[in-house]
């Protein structure tokens, strides 16, 4: 299943763009997606943290991803 991912901050630099597509198995959850992303982009492992938002909410590792979901990489935030 192909998912569409948005990247912000340093993750945009790591993946080389603000959006990209990524192949995951049907029924994968957020934890599995994150693991695959870290395999593809080892620089993610150097970050202080990497959260994933699904449809504008922080997602737990257990959340199962659907093809239409808006998936967003959230490296350490630094607003304020």
């Amino acid at each position: 299943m192909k998912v569409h991912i948005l990247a912000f901050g340093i993750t945009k630099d790591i993946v080389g763009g603000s959006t990209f597509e990524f192949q995951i198995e049907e029924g994968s959850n957020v934890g599995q997606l994150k693991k695959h992303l870290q395999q593809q982009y080892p620089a993610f492992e150097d970050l202080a943290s990497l959260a994933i938002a699904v449809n504008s909410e922080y997602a737990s590792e257990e959340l199962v991803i659907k093809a239409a979901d808006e998936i967003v990489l959230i490296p350490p935030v630094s607003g304020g």
Partner: protein
Amino acid sequence: MIDIQLLHTPLQVEKCLKRVRHPAAGGIDIFVGTVRDQTRGKKVVRLEFESYEPMAISEMKKIAERATEKWPIQNIAIHHRVGTLEIGEIAVIIAVSTPHRKASFEACQFAIDTLKETVPIWKKEIFEDGEVWVAAHP
């Protein structure tokens, strides 16, 4: 009343104050975050803020709602700027009105502390010889 704004234009303290003033308020605390000219001894030229806008707004709204549950808040405004900011410019303003002053300080501090932890906004510090995404690495 909760007033959340993510703006590409300069923030104005007067506007936030106007939003939170209330005839039954005795104390208003306003936090203003400004761009510092240096970080760890290194001269900063400017900052660039970007955000995941819909979620940034909803997370700021959540902070305001949580604060309103914890303290007797009359009004709270959270205005955050995005885009390029020069030294001394205002990145964020949080204003909170409460009947008595102690709660306004506590709620305002809670709001800025939480904002820095949860709201998807990222800042890049631009130096004379490079740039860095703040807090990205341990």
